[in-house]
């Protein structure tokens, strides 16, 4: 259908304007239509009208007929008038008839022959004075019952009296029932407005449904957290909005994919690099070990030990470099969960304790008290502790002390890791601690935690806390 296509391709505005224009144009159309409808309807009704009512449908026709008869009786004798009335009464058996002679005496009263009032004799004065004539005319003016009056000879000055035909009320009511043209109009207009409101409602409901569909699509993400594209609809304003939405989703998906690819590439590169750097170190280390088992002088043993330590340090440096690369790209996903950090610190210290023991460190661990819950990524928090402990072992060796404690400072609970080394920046000991601390800083920021370091010649204190 061409019209349908045209409707589909129009904008919402033009479609609604079309509805309004149709409604406005329809008002001049609806009046003739109503008339035609009325004509058809009443024609149909006329057939339905009882046959015996037919002579009474048009009062004016009756009036004409009555006046014709009256004219025909001009100069007729009282008997002739009576006879004619008898005949007419036979024809119009639902009407009552009587006539009054020129002297004002009622001459013949013919009652209603059919209908509910049949055989009842209309109440009519026997003799007509002027007052009675006026009273009669007043009541017939109120149409109770309708009276058609004609002077015999059809002129008052003929002085031959007058004849009256009375049509009962029920007959007029029944006939009139079929002629409510005004109420017909009202019903049609009402119908028309109801139709208009209905169409408008359907129109807006259609818009509303489509907007809701769009909103639902925007609000609920799929597996990858992005909203799913929606099926294309009509090419109107909402359709264009849906298209724009789909384009946006496609772009977002593509960009996510690009990011994931880049991330994957970076990870692979890091993993490969790590592998390529560590493999030769492993080989060197195992050869050092083999060498150590040979006959070596004490000085040789010492150098082997130093080389081994350097390899360990290099390995750590590689790990930190690669971690820093991944972390600083901001692509690394941390899974933050509510964890008792005292418990994590205890587990971390347990892993490092044997090394501290071996190196002759005094470990002062005071993590008693209520659990301290922070939102952290467990493995990366462990990494923070490892880096800090590593730094102490490598750069604060001279103090031979490590302290891990939960304390209350400035009204909040904090985690304090301290040493008795020569302090940061104060000596050559601290060189190389930077990368480890940069990772600590990055990780703590990602966990919405903060830290500060207080360092002096007597040692360093790292305080980790949750900002208020």
């Amino acid at each position: 259908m061409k019209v349908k296509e045209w409707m589909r391709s129009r904008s919402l505005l033009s479609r609604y304007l079309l509805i309004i224009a149709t409604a406005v144009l329809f008002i001049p159309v609806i009046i003739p239509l109503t008339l035609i409808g009325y004509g058809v309807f009443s024609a149909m009704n006329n057939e339905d009208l009882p046959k015996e009512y037919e002579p009474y449908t048009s009062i004016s026709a009756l009036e004409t007929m009555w006046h014709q008869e009256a004219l025909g009786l001009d100069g007729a004798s009282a008997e002739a008038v009576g006879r004619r009335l008898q005949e007419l009464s036979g024809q119009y058996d639902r009407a009552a008839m009587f006539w009054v002679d020129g002297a004002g005496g009622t001459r013949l009263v013919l009652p209603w022959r059919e209908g509910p009032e049949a055989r009842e004799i209309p109440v009519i004065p026997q003799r007509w004075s002027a007052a009675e004539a006026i009273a009669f005319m007043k009541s017939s003016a109120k149409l109770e019952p309708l009276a058609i009056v004609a002077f015999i000879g059809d002129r008052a000055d003929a002085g031959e009296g007058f004849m009256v035909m009375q049509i009962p009320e029920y007959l007029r009511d029944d006939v009139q029932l079929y002629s409510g043209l005004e109420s017909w109009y009202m019903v049609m207009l009402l119908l028309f407005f109801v139709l208009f409101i209905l169409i408008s409602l359907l129109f807006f409901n259609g818009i509303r449904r489509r907007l809701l569909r769009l909103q639902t699509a925007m609000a609920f993400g799929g597996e990858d957290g992005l909203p799913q594209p929606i099926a294309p609809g009509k090419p109107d304003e909402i359709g264009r909005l849906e298209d724009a939405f789909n384009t946006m989703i496609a772009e977002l998906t593509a960009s996510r994919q690009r990011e994931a690819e880049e991330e994957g590439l970076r990870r692979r590169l890091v993993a490969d690099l790590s592998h390529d750097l560590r493999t030769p170190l492993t080989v060197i280390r195992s050869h050092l070990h083999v060498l150590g088992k040979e006959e070596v002088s004490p000085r040789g043993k010492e150098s082997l030990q130093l080389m081994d330590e350097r390899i360990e340090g290099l390995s750590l440096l590689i790990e930190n470099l690669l971690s820093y690369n991944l972390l600083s790209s901001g692509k690394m996903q941390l899974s933050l969960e509510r964890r008792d950090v005292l418990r994590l610190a205890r587990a971390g210290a347990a892993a490092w304790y044997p090394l501290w023991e071996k190196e002759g460190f005094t470990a002062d661990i005071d993590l008693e008290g209520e659990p301290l819950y922070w939102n952290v990524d467990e493995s990366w928090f462990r990494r923070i502790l490892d880096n800090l402990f590593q730094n102490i072992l490598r750069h604060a060796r001279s103090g031979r002390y490590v302290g891990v404690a939960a304390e209350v400072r400035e009204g909040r609970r904090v985690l304090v890791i301290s040493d008795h080394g020569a302090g940061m920046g104060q000596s050559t000991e601290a060189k190389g601690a930077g990368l480890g601390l940069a990772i600590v800083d990055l990780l703590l920021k990602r966990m919405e935690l903060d830290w500060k370091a207080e360092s002096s010649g007597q040692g360093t204190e790292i305080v980790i806390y949750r900002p208020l």
Partner: protein
Amino acid sequence: MSVTLLYVEDDREIGSAVSADLREREYAVRWLESGEGAVEAAAGCQLAILDVMLPGLDGFTVGQRLKRAFPELPVLMLTARASIDDKLQGLDFADDYVTKPFHPDELAARIEVLLRRSGASAAAQLQLKHLLVSDGGQQITGAGGREIVLTGKQFQIFSYLLRHLGQILTKEQIYEAVWGEPYLEGDKTLMVHIRYLREKLELDPAAPEIIETVRGIGYRVRA
């Protein structure tokens, strides 16, 4: 009968050095250069050492296949990949994870821990100071040949410590392993049990030598 280790490593230099070192430590070593046939070769082995970056099947896949075929077989990942993601992926199924470059002594120590935990250790009997412990703590003989009988919970705690010989275990770790429910801070149950355990095991419970308290952290049974 010596303990047999399955070792999968594609780098010949590292492979031969590690195999030689492990053989020196009196382990029988089955060294494969790729993951192909690892499941078949693992029959009769007490422990598997896997490199992650292998040609063909990677170490994670090989490890998972091994675990499916031999759920009891301890798997130690030996790898040059040290990122936390790799560690987490490895520890999903593996029992331990050692990054390269490792010290051969460290590898040997980790192997020993895993073997002891799985009950396949070469040392069926363990001498701890004055105690002679057999069958992972099932039988304990004290000073003067006196047999020591432990209650259920005491045995569970002691055998857990023995399985992690030399490692420091936190209160939470021990409590959760033995009771199987989360440890609540301030709970004294474990302390009370350790006290009774010490009364049975130690020569002088006031100065414990077997179960050592590591202040602020937990407990340890030293080898």
